[in-house]
């Protein structure tokens, strides 16, 4: 501390202070004019989502405060303490200050402990699972399609929704739920990891093969008639972005009618694919003649029938066809041996093909 720095003009402090004040005013203006709304999640549609939104608002307020404090200090220092031509002497060589270090250790500790406690409280509400939910749905996420099985109170399946996304033209498709009732969803995957994500629920949960995850939600009564978009949020392969779903919020009466319709539709059609169907086809002779594989499938789900050899190499990849239509695939002659035919859309649809 051998030298005293040149006295700084007071105008420096005024300029620096003004710039920091403008920074703060800008941030305030952004939020007062509503331009900051895009920094908030969309309006939550579920009780659990509203809880999460309340937590988000607290974290966000603290974040803005801390950002303005630290950024203000940086901007202030940058403007106020720039080196001037007259600055030959060294500034005061401050090596630190233990009181300051303790303050900026203890205060942030208190803030994060507070955040931890409130997020734990919120978590215990958001993650709560009831023993007897009003509605039970078993969601199956496979590459690259959702399906929703509606279960009764005993866990027995009563109907299956095979069209996961709401079609605005036909009004068909989607996972309907009654507003104001607790809905428990169990999640299973027959292939890779997926994630059930509905942005307006402010919620997602992974669908992990070999592990049944579950979560519960209650749609707010004011949301009756709304359709919420959702989609897979965990990379699951080439069809990831097309793994869409919708949740339709209905009044309890409308929901009962909707479910009744689904039950009738489910009973009217054969038990649908895709779930572990195995077809065994044997072709006689060296030449494999065109085989007709019947794949009963509802419209809206596409399939194909490709072939691979025993080593896993794909010999034939065919164009996909829409469920409910029929087509003929022609294959090149194959050597004798055991092959696998499979649908490249649904990895669990396979069968054995023996060429003798």
């Amino acid at each position, binding site marked *: 501390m051998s030298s005293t*720095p040149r006295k700084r003009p007071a105008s420096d402090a005024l300029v620096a202070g003004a710039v920091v004040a403008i920074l703060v005013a800008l941030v305030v203006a952004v939020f007062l004019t509503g331009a900051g709304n895009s*920094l*908030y999640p969309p309006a939550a549609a579920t009780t659990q989502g509203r809880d*999460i939104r309340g937590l*988000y608002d607290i*974290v*966000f307020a603290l*974040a803005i405060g*801390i950002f303005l404090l630290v*950024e203000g200090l*940086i901007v202030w*220092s*940058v403007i106020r*303490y*720039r*080196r001037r031509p007259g600055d030959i002497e*060294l*500034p*005061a060589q*401050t*090596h*630190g*200050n233990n009181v*300051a*270090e303790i303050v*900026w*250790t203890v205060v942030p*500790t208190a803030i*994060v402990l507070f*955040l*931890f406690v409130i*997020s*734990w409280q*919120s*978590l215990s509400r958001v993650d709560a699972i009831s023993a007897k939910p009003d509605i039970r749905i078993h969601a199956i996420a496979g*590459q690259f399609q959702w399906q929703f099985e509606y279960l009764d109170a005993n866990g027995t399946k009563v109907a299956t929704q095979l069209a996961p996304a709401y079609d605005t033209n036909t009004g068909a498709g989607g996972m309907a739920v009654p507003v104001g009732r607790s809905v428990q969803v169990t999640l299973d995957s027959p292939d*890779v*990891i997926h994630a059930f*994500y509905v942005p*307006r629920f*402010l*919620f*997602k949960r992974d669908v*992990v093969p*070999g*592990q049944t*995850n579950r979560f519960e939600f209650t749609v707010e009564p004011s949301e009756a008639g709304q359709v919420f*978009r959702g*989609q*897979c*949020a*965990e*990379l*699951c*392969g*080439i069809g*990831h972005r097309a793994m869409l779903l919708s949740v339709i919020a209905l009044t309890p009466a409308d929901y009962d009618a909707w479910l009744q319709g689904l039950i009738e539709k489910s009973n009217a059609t054969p038990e649908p694919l895709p779930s572990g169907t195995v077809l065994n086809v044997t072709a006689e002779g060296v030449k494999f003649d065109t085989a007709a594989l019947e794949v009963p499938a509802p419209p809206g789900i596409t399939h194909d029938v490709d072939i691979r050899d025993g080593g*896993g190499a*794909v010999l034939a990849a065919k164009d996909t066809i829409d469920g409910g239509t029929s087509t003929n695939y022609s294959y090149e002659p194959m050597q004798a041996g055991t092959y696998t035919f499979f649908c490249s859309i649904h*990895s669990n649809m396979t069968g054995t093909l023996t060429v003798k």
Partner: protein
Amino acid sequence: MATHALNPAASTYARGGLYEWLATTDHKKIGIMYVVNSMLFFLVGGVLALVVRTELATPGIQFLADERVYNEMFTMHATLMIFVFIIPMLAGLGNYAVPLQIGAPDMAFPRINALSFWMLPLAGILLISSFFTGGAAAAGWTSYPPLSGEGPLNSPGSGQDLWIVSLILIGTSSILGAINFLVTIFKMRAPGMTLFRMPIMVWTILVTSVLVLMATPVITSALVMLFIDRNLGGHFFDPFAGGSAVLYQNIFWFYSHPAVYVMVLPAMGVISEVLPVFSRKPLFGYRAFVFATAGIGALGFSVWAHHMFTTGAVFLPFFALLTFMIAIPTGVKMFNWVFTLFRGQLTFSTPLIFALGFLTMFLIGGINGAFSAAVPVDFALHDTYWVVAHLHYVLFGGSVFGVFAGIYYWFPKMTGRMLDEGLGKIQFVLMFVGFNLTFFPMHMLGLAGMPRRIADYAGDAGWNEWNIAATVGGFMIAASMLPFLWNVFISLRNGKVAGDDPWEGNTLEWATSSPPPPYNFDSLPEIRSERPLFDARHGQTAH
């Protein structure tokens, strides 16, 4: 410890030209090769990012053939940037700076040092070659099984295997490098260079090396298991044969979270060198800073599962608490940096400008990370573009800005020439504006529900404007590299001659010539503080 009086005959090289670079064991040349190699892969990874941003600019799949190619693009972008750019780039700056800063003639094991470098271009070429052998890895840089397993819909072909082999090579290179750094720092410090007189850069490399040494073997085990599952009929991660898909995530993140600190601590070290020099003040709270660095390193091993909050397979309160606690030592560092500036005399040379960019961007990257520590909020944000924003504010806004601060700071030492200040400032402005235009809107996209890693989105989802902004910003970042490359090119030829100490530096690398001779020093100044050159310039009493 022995004195470092060196035989002057040692300061001539027996070999010349290209052969000298190929065969060298000089830590300075190896460090420069690390930097150049990493910069080349940064450009490749950047081009892949532009491909991703071009595809996402508007709804529909217009630019790429199909989703598989898209998945390859972002997978390889992240893999190259993390494993072949940031980690080796910072290791390279450390390789150059650490022996100089502790007054040592070279690394402890010069030949092993050369070996760890030469594995990197090999691994990078292996990675890129997978584009020409039937398709690159496409399961994301995290490569979660079962998607990264075999199967026509998962990861068929050799791309994923090449990815595994490359990462094992890079991991081996990191482990060798870490041991080399640790032995160098513990055994080769000059007389008087006690641990608490080491430059912060050396401290951050020390902590980073401990992290690398403890964590990298763990991911290697995950990669080997994945390789066995794919090629040798194993079922470690196959849930349909008694394995566990989530097991991989636990092992992967046990490495990859500490790896985040491997990717950011040395950049913190760089700016902790730059801020004091250009403020003409010592680093505020040196010891607190050292303890905070060690604290981040230690806590870094107990927060891995915060990448797995939505799996339904981790104990959430434990990982939430420890994740929040990381904010405390990070906050200590932030305040120490700001109070280093406070009441200083700031010279706005390019290294300082990039360091200030680091402070501002890393501040945002730290704050938006706290949102995800609040577990229920993470349920909303996880795997959306919010996370993409967060990780780029930390790794680009933080690490990459720190890297450029370091390049502008040490380029005069490496080459003997100054980089042009005007071009440096043009680069900074383009990069800073482009960066924020690209990544700030991703917060809004994530909140509005756009998941990451999707090749396309509906036109009526409300995401169009922010996506266009992000794409424009991405091309601005690319444009910012042009003045940089031009700057390096012209400065190597005609740049201002730097002299030994162009910045009035504090640390020992500025006590030798630019570039330094082989084995670095003919003589060393007395080391009585963490700023030996400051003491030599102003006298101990000024300290």
